[in-house]
């Protein structure tokens, strides 16, 4: 495994989970020693590679604006060690940024990356991908899938590029027993989930939940800090701003992640605000994840990664809200 990673690092920029304090983060690695494939989840999801937290839309100098090719060079890179939930998030983001209109920035960044998925080794406290139908098995959306089958990695390619890369490395042929071992790993994972969401009729249920007391209950403790949306792998909202150089002749237009939990998010001219209350903002975040996303993209926005649960300073839990939504309104 080590020599395999080293050889990837020689030919590509490789981004993978590394240890960051007590947490993990997707960062550039230059050697196999940086890599921590036993990670459970990262602080920020891998969306940051396709739609960075702050990204230049264009720079301008007088009437001249920059070209995307200059801002985002074409360069094959590898995103390695991506779990099933995050792999599923790419599908959702693709529909947002390449569906109705194609954003060439997202497209360029997305195409720059080969995706090496990784079968999880363990299920963490906050994971619920199984109930969202996005994991623990990675079934599509990757170039190469890696599974630790006990000291050795089973490598499966699902794209021509992934296949060619594996061929070039001269790996040992996998056996039927290896595939069987992978199945065993998955079965083992499936029994470990502590959290789940019942998706039966959930889209309708959340859609019709406007008056449900659950929003007041959790809205009253929500700090509206927006961490849940910042760490969400499918939250895509951004604000657009301009910055002028001190010369006042050139500058840039950039976008940066914005979240619906913040007061200013739904503000309009003359101080109007369509989501003034925290109840309403929390409801927007949760209902987008459990309901509206399906109506917009025919795909559940929530992939069950559990990051929002982990990040919430007041322990608001989307799986608990989904459960309470089923309780009859009093």
């Amino acid at each position, binding site marked *: 495994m080590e020599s395999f990673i080293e050889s990837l690092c020689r030919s590509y920029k490789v981004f993978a989970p590394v240890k960051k304090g007590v947490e993990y983060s997707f960062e550039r690695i230059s050697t196999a020693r940086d890599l921590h494939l036993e990670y459970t989840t990262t602080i920020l999801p891998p969306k940051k590679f396709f739609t960075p937290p702050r990204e230049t*839309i*264009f720079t*301008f100098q007088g*009437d001249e*604006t920059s070209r*995307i090719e200059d801002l985002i060079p074409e360069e094959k890179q590898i995103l390695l060690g991506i779990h099933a939930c995050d792999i599923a998030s790419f599908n959702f983001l693709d529909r*947002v*940024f390449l569906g*109705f*209109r*194609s*954003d*060439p*920035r997202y*497209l360029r960044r997305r195409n720059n990356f080969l995706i090496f998925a990784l079968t999880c080794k363990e299920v963490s406290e906050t994971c619920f991908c199984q109930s969202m139908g996005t994991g623990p098995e990675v079934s599509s959306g990757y170039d190469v899938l890696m599974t630790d089958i006990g000291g050795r990695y089973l490598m499966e390619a699902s794209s021509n590029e992934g296949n060619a890369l594996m061929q070039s490395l001269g790996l040992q042929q996998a056996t039927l027993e290896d595939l069987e071992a992978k199945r065993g790993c998955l079965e083992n994972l499936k029994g470990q989930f502590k959290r789940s969401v019942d998706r039966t009729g959930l889209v309708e249920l959340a*859609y019709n939940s*406007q008056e449900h007391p659950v929003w007041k209950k959790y809205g009253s403790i929500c700090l509206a800090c927006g961490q849940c949306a910042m760490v969400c792998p499918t939250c*895509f*909202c*951004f*604000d*657009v*701003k*301009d*910055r*002028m150089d001190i010369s*006042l002749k050139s*500058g840039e*237009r950039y*976008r940066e992640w*914005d979240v*619906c939990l913040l007061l200013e*998010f*739904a*503000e*309009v*001219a*003359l101080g*109007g605000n*369509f*989501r003034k209350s925290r109840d*309403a903002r929390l*409801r*927007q975040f949760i*209902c*987008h994840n459990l*309901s*509206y996303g399906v*109506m*917009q993209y025919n795909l559940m926005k929530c992939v069950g990664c559990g990051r929002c649960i982990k990040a919430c300073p007041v322990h608001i839990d989307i799986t608990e809200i989904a459960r309470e939504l089923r309780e009859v309104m009093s």
Partner: protein
Amino acid sequence: MKDPYARDVAEILEVHTETHNTKTFVMRFLDKERQRNFSFIPGQFIVISIPGVGEAMFSISSSTSNHENFATTIRKVGRVTSMIHKCGVGDKILVGGPYGSGWPMGQLEGKDILIITGGIGLPSPRPVITYINEHRNDFGFLEILYGTRTPDESIFAREQEAWRKMKNTRLALTVDYVPEGVQWEHKVGVCTILCEEMVTKPRNAVALICGPEVMMHNVVVELLNRGFHEDQLYLSLERRMRCGIAQCGHCQLGPKFVCKDGPVFKYSEIKNLPDSYI
């Protein structure tokens, strides 16, 4: 691939002062092909952008049959609109669009058209009025009910006389209050009081409503009470927008993107959605 975030340079040809805080800007794309290909449906909007300051969305207020130039009518309310208001003839700005759905022009032919608008809501249905005027025999009765806060906030004042003189057309005005010493020969009261003397009957009518959301809510209630069906009412909504192409996420209204699925919606599509007054 055309970058949807790119903007095109347009030159300001004319500036008309509508009120103390509202101006109409007539523009033309510098790129001749862009100008030639620029067509829109009444009710669609554009983005106007000033590098270094920012950009914002505005309804197109000019006629759809004019391919030489286009116009938008802007009230000064914030940073971007204040900067646009400083622009004059010959200045260059950046423009993108058009975006969004427009008024349901296909549904309007042969119908009586009732336009109810408030304040800075009038620019959106103005191209509908112009279109009806240009194809007067294709439509039934046209009734325009327009409310503003004060008499001097009424926009397109120079055109209102022409609208009054249009065949088979009625224009009625109201203001919330009349400041002392100001002459006003029309109604006083919120927009819905114009519904009391409304001539349009529900039977063969379509209502186009654009204004502050609370006003639109009250108008909808009034029209439903007067026998209009939900599917006869169309509303143009306002939301914060940063992209116009359903990517920035700001304009979400339940499962709808106001920029892509709207801004014009049939009432039945958006009633009962959260975070709106409708």
